[in-house]
């Protein structure tokens, strides 16, 4: 059974990716990488990752989030994070990645931040 599931929604040129499961070494990290790369290949560069149902991220998953952030930025876009669980929030805090990512708790606010 896959450790991570991803579904995408699009509103007004902004793509929301709803993720659920684990972003960890193996298929979880690989799916996140493929999802972001596929969106970029389709020219979608305003991306919000909804992590509300992601209950676990390891260092490989953190690396993949950073990789996605950089890849989107290199295409002139932005990748933002939505609905962090406490564990993911704490991980981003201790690794200082809160200073890197735009993080939101409200979907509409995350959408408006692209205006």
């Amino acid at each position, binding site marked *: 059974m896959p450790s991570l599931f991803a579904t995408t929604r699009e509103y007004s040129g902004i793509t929301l990716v709803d993720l659920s499961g684990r972003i960890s*070494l193996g298929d979880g990290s690989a799916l996140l990488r493929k999802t972001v790369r596929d969106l970029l290949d389709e020219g979608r560069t305003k991306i919000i990752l909804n992590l509300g149902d992601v209950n676990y991220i*390891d*260092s490989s998953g953190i*690396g993949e989030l950073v990789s996605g952030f950089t890849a989107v930025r290199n295409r002139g876009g932005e990748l933002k994070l939505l609905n962090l669980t406490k564990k993911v929030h704490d991980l981003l805090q201790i*690794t200082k990645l809160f200073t*890197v990512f735009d993080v939101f708790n409200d979907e509409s606010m995350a959408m408006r931040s692209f205006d």
Partner: protein
Amino acid sequence: MAAETKHLEVTLDTHVESVNLAEEMCVRVAEAAGFNEDECYRIGMSVREGVINAFHYGNQEKPEKKIHLAIELTEERMIIHVLDEGKGFHLTDVPDPLAQENLLSTSGRGIFLMKAFMDEFDVHPGKTGGAELVMAKRLPGLGSPHSNGNGSASNSGAPHQEA
């Protein structure tokens, strides 16, 4: 009479699945030892990162090499050893993942997380080569005067990249 130490050792293949297996085994031992859910998560994550380090950096994903995992339960601590068959490394050579120039690195946070989540962490040369990661957490109810296992790292580090 000396207190009994419980000891469990397994040899793992250099394979992604070994990472999950090691994590699950150590979490089960931690649960049985009385650690709460948060502490089990931190122990599991630390073991996971240790085995990822052995799998990726130590053994360089070579299937003929093995990863040796040992768990000790003493009266005071749960101690975990992760030994690889690589070239070994020194903690002082590990870059700081919190340094501004490393924040956007896509790797290099595993050792930092182990230090953050466990009460004790160190790296020794393996007796027959490789690196042996040793990490420990005090058992629940014994206090933790030097603990940094509350999710905030008192020092920094990153997974080693052997030359």
